[in-house]
């Protein structure tokens, strides 16, 4: 049962490869050849070749899956493959990540970075809320100083302008 399900989602990978290949091929047709260029290789050649390669690998992958081949999920020190993907954790992580992207230019890194770290630790199951909050602020403020003063990279200061 699980193998059938895994096979179906893997066919999705083959479909994605096919779509990517189609994208490369369509994009290539919209390129103009260079006037007076010598040789068969113009700006189109590589996108077409890559597109064909993607389509071929999509077909090969689909054939492999239908013949019973399955991709091997990556193992690791902290990875437990006995249960499926934990979508709730993933959703919270992505939410924290997106919050940082939306906030960084408005509120500045010291705030958005803290939100990012606090949100991701919460998503990953840490419930020491006060400790995590202190840690988050300490990390984001110290990295702001490190980048702005130490490395000369101006991370946005945002609403804390004048305070930091």
């Amino acid at each position, binding site marked *: 049962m699980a193998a059938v399900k895994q096979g179906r989602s893997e066919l999705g990978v083959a479909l994605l*490869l096919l779509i990517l290949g189609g994208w490369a091929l369509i994009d290539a047709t919209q390129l103009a050849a260079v006037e007076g260029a010598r040789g068969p290789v113009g700006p189109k050649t590589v996108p077409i070749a*890559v597109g064909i390669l993607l389509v071929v690998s999509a077909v090969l992958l689909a054939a492999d899956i239908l013949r019973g081949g399955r991709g091997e999920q990556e193992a690791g020190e902290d990875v437990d493959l006995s249960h499926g993907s934990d979508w709730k954790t993933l959703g919270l992580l992505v939410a924290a990540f997106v919050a940082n992207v939306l906030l960084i230019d408005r509120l500045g890194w010291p705030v958005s970075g803290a939100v990012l770290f606090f949100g991701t630790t919460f998503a990953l199951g840490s419930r020491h809320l006060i400790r995590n909050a202190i840690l988050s602020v300490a990390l984001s403020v110290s990295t702001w100083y490190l980048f702005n003063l130490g490395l000369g990279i101006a991370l946005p200061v945002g609403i804390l302008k004048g305070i930091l």
Partner: protein
Amino acid sequence: MDALSELLNGFATAAHPTNLLYAFVGVLLGTAIGVLPGIGPAMTIALLLPLTYALEPTQAFIMFAGIYYGGMYGGSTTSILLNTPGESASVVTAIEGNKMARKGRAAAALATAAIGSFIAGTIGTLALALVAPGVVKLAIKMGAPDYFAVMVLAFIAVTTVLGSSKIRGLAALAIGLLVGTIGIDPTSGQQRLTLGLPELADGIDVVVVAVGLFAVGEALWIAAHLRRTPAEIISVGAARMTREDWRRSWKPWLRGTAIGFPFGAIPAGGAEIPTFLSYVTEKKLSKHPEEFGQGAIEGVAGPEATNNASAAGGLVPLLTLGIPTTATAAVMLGAFQGYGIQPGTRLLQTQPELVWGLVASLFIGNVILLALNLPLAPMWAKLLRIPRPYLYAGILFFASIGAYAANLSTFDLWLLLVLGALGFGMRRFGLPVVPAIIGIILGPTAEVQLRRALQISDGHISGLTDTWFAKIVYVVILLVLVVPPIVTRLRTREPVKVGD
């Protein structure tokens, strides 16, 4: 002689107190980050790249030298104390190393890994210094068709050698080549695959690619499958070896070095094959073959030395031809390009201070590594106990800073998320990440060489194969493609014959 005097100049560069400090910081950070579970050498370099933005290229690469060896040693510490490493080159180390640790011999396993890495790294770096000028002399005669052939070999080797499925390797390579094509075509100035987004016109920043595929992809993947009960960690004192351990280790170290360096130097898909080869060799030659699988010290000493020697060997094609053979080397190449430096035949002439400073720093970094790691083993072991929420939150945090700091644009953060999702999907469906990263970074260069070769030949396809060197490389490619399937077929047939 020439190489040696250049190397001495390199030492003069590297021994400058500031540069020594950078090497030291590089080793320390590289080891500390590399020890953390789930973080391999390629991710270590990608995450630490932003720290070098403000540095001069020479100093940045001196720091990289430290991070390179430090990150690798950190990875083997993890695999000895924790087992099941995330990084392919340490897989073999984990077999015997973790068994030794479980028997209370963690200190000896870490010591033989550290000293073996030191010896292999030193000999390997010396070989790099001696071989590189010669390779450059040969490489100067290489034309566009030759380069293109070598790059095709790198693509083929990395897709067919790594991972359990060649089809999935090919798919990963194709995705990488596609991502590498995004941006303005250098010859015609037209936008390719940019979806009309101006931010994509210059292509995707290497830092964003590396951090997205390795750091974000890995963190999301692990987070979705986080072990509910933390893995068992073996505590350890300072790393040290008995006289008996020394006696059993020194030959595997040297043999491992001899196996690792040449494998690293040719585009053959990284350290996976040579470390395995070293393991098998030691098992064959050992006086205690029965100990293999139970924690034989030779099984740690050999593969660890091989791993480091092959890392040193991998710098030969990277520095002389600009061709990366491993993910780590690909990220380094990306870092070079970030500084506007194109590794290749002219690098040794145009940037001798940088190259020889880097090589000398590899020697210095190795010494620092040994000095740090024997006494500090217990501290590194403590790092393994870092609460997992902090570890993976930290990876996402530093990945976000790194990607944002590259261009100070939130667009890169969105891109980081997309690439992270790609990295997650690849891990989920067993597509290896290394062919993708090699495709992204090497693809555009391969296109340039292909165009150049066909312009020279006035469009004749024969222009790709008309040099003897290119012909040899294509024969090698053919062998890489044809021989392994035949061998496996013969192997599977044999028992059938016996059965008849």
